[in-house]
């Protein structure tokens, strides 16, 4: 780890001020991705601005039709929330399956979303649920938020405050874990809302994406059989020592069916 100046701020305004200096500064949420990178000297910042002291960034509430989750809410809190379980049970289940207990107790929704890891779980949920990312400056639709490998629509100095989720009629998530890291080798989030069907895939490309063919098929027939004859082309999919593009394409199709099956389960 290189030396840096650590600042724990108490408000968004303070955070903005801390970021505004000329030096390179980075926001710290749960630190579950940032700290390992720092420890291995893979990144160097002059300043680390810790958002952990801003109470208003934590919490879960309903705002009319939306479920609103504060950016600094931990995965464990989302997983254990009765409100999330009642509103979007698939989201609670997703949060319960991120990393391990230590990661879930530290890692946050906002941190995960801002980091935009290509194998993270939350981006699939945000994209499939047509979520809106609220910053101190604007509201960004998930559709345009995730731009690429660790790349988002956030501008310098822009801080995620909360994520708004529209409640779906049906939602389900299924992932196949990469065996070593236990990140998603592929993960698929399927939703049906008043606006239509969405199928969001994580882990398979440099960024989360919608599988449009599957969405069209499910819009016509929201049953697993509708996916049976579909195949996601493997070109452009990730290939590494854990899985070839071809196997990932196959797993997307299987995970989509399993996510759909989860979405179709009657509420427990």
């Amino acid at each position, binding site marked *: 780890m290189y030396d840096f100046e650590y600042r724990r701020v108490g408000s968004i305004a303070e955070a903005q001020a801390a970021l505004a200096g000329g030096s390179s500064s980075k926001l710290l949420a749960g630190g579950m991705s940032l700290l390992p990178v720092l420890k291995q000297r893979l990144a160097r910042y002059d300043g680390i601005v810790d958002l952990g002291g801003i109470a208003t960034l934590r919490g879960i509430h309903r705002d009319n039709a939306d479920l609103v989750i504060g950016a600094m809410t931990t995965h464990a809190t989302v997983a254990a929330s009765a409100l999330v379980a009642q509103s979007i049970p698939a989201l609670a289940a997703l949060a319960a399956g991120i990393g391990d207990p230590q990661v879930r107790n530290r890692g946050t929704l906002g941190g995960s979303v801002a980091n935009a890891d290509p194998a993270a779980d939350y981006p699939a949920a945000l994209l499939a649920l047509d979520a809106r990312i609220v910053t101190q400056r604007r509201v960004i639709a998930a559709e345009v938020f995730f731009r690429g490998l660790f790349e988002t629509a956030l501008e310098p100095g822009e801080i995620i405050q909360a994520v708004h989720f529209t409640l779906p009629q049906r939602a389900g998530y299924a992932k196949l874990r990469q065996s070593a890291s236990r990140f998603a080798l592929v993960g698929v989030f399927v939703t049906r809302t008043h606006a239509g069907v969405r199928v969001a895939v994580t882990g398979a490309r440099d960024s989360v994406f919608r599988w449009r063919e599957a969405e069209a098929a499910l819009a016509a027939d929201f049953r697993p059989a509708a996916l049976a004859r579909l195949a996601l082309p493997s070109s452009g999919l990730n290939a590494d020592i854990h899985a070839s593009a071809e*196997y990932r394409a196959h797993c997307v199709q299987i995970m989509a069916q399993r996510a759909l099956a989860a979405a179709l389960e009657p509420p427990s």
Partner: protein
Amino acid sequence: MDEIATDSRIGQPVRRKEDERLLTGKGCFSDDVNLPEQAYAVFVRSPHAHARIRSIDARAARAIAGVLAVLTGEELLADGLKPLPHVPFSMHPAEIRLANRDGTPLFSAPHYPLACDKVRFVGEALAVVVAASVAIAKDGAEQVAVDYEVLPAVVDTLAAAEPDAPRIWEHATSNVCLDADAGDRAATEAAFARAVHVVRFSTQVNRVTGVTMEPRAAVAQYDAARQRYTLYAGSGGAVRLKDDLATVLDIPAAQVRAVMRDIGGNFGTRGMIYPEFCVVAWAARRVGRPVKWTCERQEAFLADYQARDLAVQAELALDAQGNFLALRSSNVGNAGAHPTNFSPLQKGVEIMSSIYRMPCAFVRARAVLSNTSPTRPYRSAGRPEVMYVLERLIDLAARECDFDRIALRERNLLRQAELPYTNPFGMVYDSGDYHGAMAKALELGDWAGFPARREQARRRGKYRGIGVANYVDTASGVPRERAEISVHPQGRVSVVVGTVSNGQGHETSFAQLVNEWLGVALERVDIIAGDTDIVKVGGGTHSGRGMRLISIVVLNASRQIIDKGKRIAARLLESDPSRVRFDAGRFEVAEGGRAVTLFEVAAAAERLGDLPEDLRGPLTAFSDETVKEASFPYGAHVCEVEIDPELGAVEIVRYAAVDDAGRAVNPMIIHGQTHGGIVQGVGQALYENCYYDPRSGQLLAGSFMDYTMPRADHFPPFDTHISEVPSTTHPLGMRPAGEGGTTPALAVVINAIVDALAELGVRHVEMPATPERIWRAMRAAAGTASGNSSTPMPQAQ
């Protein structure tokens, strides 16, 4: 599992007395040692798989405030350090020798603690920065500018053996650094010529690494006044580490003290001196301060010795009834960048025919150098690989030649009456009930009930398979061991041995021996092993030699203590030594019932000035033995798996093991060893793989994010059973029990997977049997069978 211990004698499942200390953070591992004024070492490691070092510019690093020294291979040679003293083979008298078939001497190449001319694998150390803190040392390491001439690299085992492969060592004629024949070639050819059935199997056994829970660490101190080095570092044994360090530093062994307390895992990959240990000792002298180095996990993946990595092409010849006629094989072991240790190759060859009746066999055994971290023995060195090959061959023979796989094994498995049996490589199996072990494993694994479980699995949409594998293991290692027992009048007994615990529970199991023979309570027994100022002789922990040899020397020394004690007690009890009997820690005269305790006798020995000279003073005795017999633990495992036909994911649903320990000192510890061994074996079969990129030579599985470790939730509860057929080559009948869990695990897991998929026409799945590999095998088989590439779902029958 066994019941609760009733006392602390041999055979009792006594709870490990070291566990409370270890589990409550009170252990003392290498990194827990800190010395006043210590400085910190960080190594500069090669980013290239193969490169010539043109020059190293350390000026910028040396200019950093707090950097005390930057040392390179140039300084190392100038200071006269020597290469690491590798012993390439097991020299145990019971084992075979491998020599080049053309009579040329064994290839050797100097393995200096810092690379001097070339770097030969990614992560090889070529310089060290010593600084006032780790952070400053890291800053310094980043500033060391190395001018590399990058060379073509080769990492793959068979590719490295090609004549035109990039040459790791220029003075070698090829990367093949050992090319040996073993067995009877002519007889084997003749047997194959008359065989009715010949089954062939080729495989590449994956490379794995030890992944000790405690990463390596070392702290070294140099006492200039006494010209003496002290090295605190965990290894298999302190004496060997001391001697090897003295060799590298080119000084008499008396000028080195090696100290180790708790050690968080060894498995063989940690059993040998490491370059970093030598460098910190040397650096401590150079900077005049103690120097500490703590390996980081990613550094461990790169620079720890690795293991396995064997390419095999094997054939089994059978007659019409299924009798084995001959075994023929080519075994190519990947030695890595330095020719450090060929004993896994050697140990694999010599028992490749396992415990089956095999009239003849022939193996061509080669070791090849490559641009990878050097390989070493790792839990059951060389044996899991060949047991896997032979047990796969047997399953293939059963399927392809239409034999029942149990009947085929029973037909060829050696019977008790045939022992001792000399196998076709000349190894003599002493004793054992091989049929009994397999029968018991089949019973524990409920082989008979499998068809019903398979049918249930089909209804759940899963393929279910079962496998069995027999095994034998050669336990040899350094044959000499010593124990010195001292009885202290204050009420304690200390036992100095040369074999440190790497987690095996010696403080408990060795103390049980003392309890058995001297009647001393476990908590009064101190096992001392890790300090060469106290321990003078000892081979260290490897090759199933800990309990096997320690039991012999502790028994001998205990008998001497009792004999001396009887003579002293006779004086105290005013009797004759022949009338004194020793029982449960007391010497008593039979007729009168008068008695003195062992500790009272020890006090008298120190107090009474008029005792004969050999009894006067502290009550101590030692035994120093060289045991020339090897031991052959054996057993059988049964594994059952379920496979998800959509993803190819495999789940182990049942696992039963029978391992013969001859005589179990602590069954609970043995069960624990077996559990850990199974997990390491299954890790290799399903998950672990030191994957080097074939083009760049980069280690792509270089962290826990990419190197898959087995986890608790991968396993069902194990059903482990300890068989106790006394060994005829050990005075107490013991056989080692530390490696049996691993030895058949590779074979039994792959056999079970292939059994699950056999109905699809799958013949084999390579290790690690990842979901993708299984999915591809299913698809390929389905494609062959029907021209359809989709995987059929299991059909209820």
